[in-house]
């Protein structure tokens, strides 16, 4: 793919996944996953435990290489591209454009909020890091706790700081790996508000077990079972009751 077709070129879809395979030992965690997601969409990925949801997210975010297509999308005909960047061949460039919010905060509890963001700002070599940190802490309403150690934060505050960390490098796409896991209703409301406030500016990919929440947020839904795509549709085309039935049938399939 020519260089100019990557990144901000509006013609390039946010995600192009073609015949994606990831094998762990004898088990196929991803088995020929194929779909294309437009820019600005919100994809919710559902499926039973062990269906391959988190593996898919890890492959898309370059944390786990695919088992096929290690030579890149172009050479093998299978693999994944995020905003035109091949998850294998362009991994380094792609990492600058990805933000992840997980049920794991990915923060250091023995550092303060400010020190955590400063560390990641240095890893991303952000210009004028202190200004960026200040504005993000302000945005997630943690400026008053900036010098406090993260281990003293509540779960909701940690998740807000986690969002600030994810947005630090101005990513193009946000991956959310069960971000509501372990949050109390109040913290979940705050997270809802933060996602809503940035919803229009990003492409989102969210892994969730919460059918209602996932459907509420998404523009596209995908059900994975045994590493295969059972359903990938725009939300407008989905009948919620049929979707629920299909989902529960796939949960019954369990893992491969």
């Amino acid at each position, binding site marked *: 793919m020519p260089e100019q077709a990557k990144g901000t070129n509006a013609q390039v879809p946010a995600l192009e996944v073609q015949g994606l395979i990831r094998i762990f030992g004898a088990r196929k965690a991803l088995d020929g996953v194929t779909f294309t997601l437009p820019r600005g969409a919100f994809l919710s990925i559902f499926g039973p435990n062990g269906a391959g949801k988190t593996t898919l997210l890890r492959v898309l975010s370059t944390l786990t290489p695919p088992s096929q297509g290690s030579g890149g999308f172009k050479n093998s005909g299978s693999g994944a591209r995020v905003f035109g960047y091949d998850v294998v061949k362009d991994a380094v460039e792609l990492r600058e454009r990805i933000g992840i919010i997980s049920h794991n905060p990915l923060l250091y509890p023995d550092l303060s909020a400010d020190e955590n963001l400063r560390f990641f700002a240095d890893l991303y070599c952000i210009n004028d890091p202190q200004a960026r940190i200040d504005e993000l802490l302000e945005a997630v309403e943690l400026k008053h706790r900036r010098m406090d150690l993260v281990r003293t934060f509540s779960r909701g505050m940690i998740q807000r700081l986690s969002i600030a*960390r994810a947005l630090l490098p101005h990513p*193009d796409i946000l991956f959310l790996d069960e971000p509501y896991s372990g949050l109390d209703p109040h913290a979940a409301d705050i997270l809802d508000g933060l996602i809503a406030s940035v919803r229009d500016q990003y492409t989102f990919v969210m892994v969730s077990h919460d059918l209602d929440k996932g459907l509420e947020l998404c523009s596209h839904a995908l059900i994975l079972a045994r590493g295969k795509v059972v359903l990938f549709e725009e939300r407008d085309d989905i009948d919620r009751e049929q979707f629920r039935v299909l989902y529960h049938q796939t949960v019954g399939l369990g893992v491969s």
Partner: protein
Amino acid sequence: MPYEDKVLTRKSKADKGSGDRMGSGTVLSSGDKTVPDPILSPDPLSTQRPKISSWRQFKAILRKDIVMELRTKEMITSMGLYALLVLIIYYVALSQAGTNFDVSRISAGLLLLAIVFTSMLGLNRSLVHEQDQGQLDALLLSPIDRPILFLGKAVTNFIFLAIVEVIITPLFYFIFMGNAHTSQMGPLWMVALALLLGSIGIAGVGTLLATMSVNTKGKDFVLAVIFIPLMFPLLLAVVTALNAVILGNPDATTVFWRFAGIAFGYDVITIAIAWALYEFILGV
């Protein structure tokens, strides 16, 4: 396309699937034009990313690890205490050897043994604390070259090991060699150089092996099983060089430089291999 237009284009695409058509409680985007919050928005010039500086990333890892250690004192305290316990065990064992036993003849081996065992404790911890809350994933998600990550962790491990050595080496000398025949002992800087070469190799190879073992079951056992055999050439070279200095034989200087050279060569080769393999070991 101007940035504002680009965001609005994105928004119009996103509108198709958002909003409250399915009775959602959260209105994600209204029909009105919204002005994106520049703080929370993607970079308007996202093709022009900041220039990545490996030096800045290296310093960030070093600073983070040192600040966390100064705050928790987890590694240095546990390594220091463990080293002290090893010295106590040595003391108990050697107290039965009789007054004619010249400890200086085996002191180099004993000291290095204490250092190697102590280092394994720290090496295990150095990557385990990157896993507690998925921090290793956050590190790997950042645009850092994997060899820079290796260098950062290895230098941190070296610093912590060096601090422990600065404490236990004089302690070792006063406990075991105060009354030994050390009048022929060579200059202290030669002892320091031998320990330095040993510590560089321990930190370099140890960081690589700790990374390999961090995701395995029984990581402590796995590290120990791989670490000691791989370190054997270095340990032999450093012990021989140290022995030459401590015993002060007539050919001490020649022996010292020969084995210091071997230790240096081992350090260079293994660190070069670790540098080249680190990305492969991490798997991303």
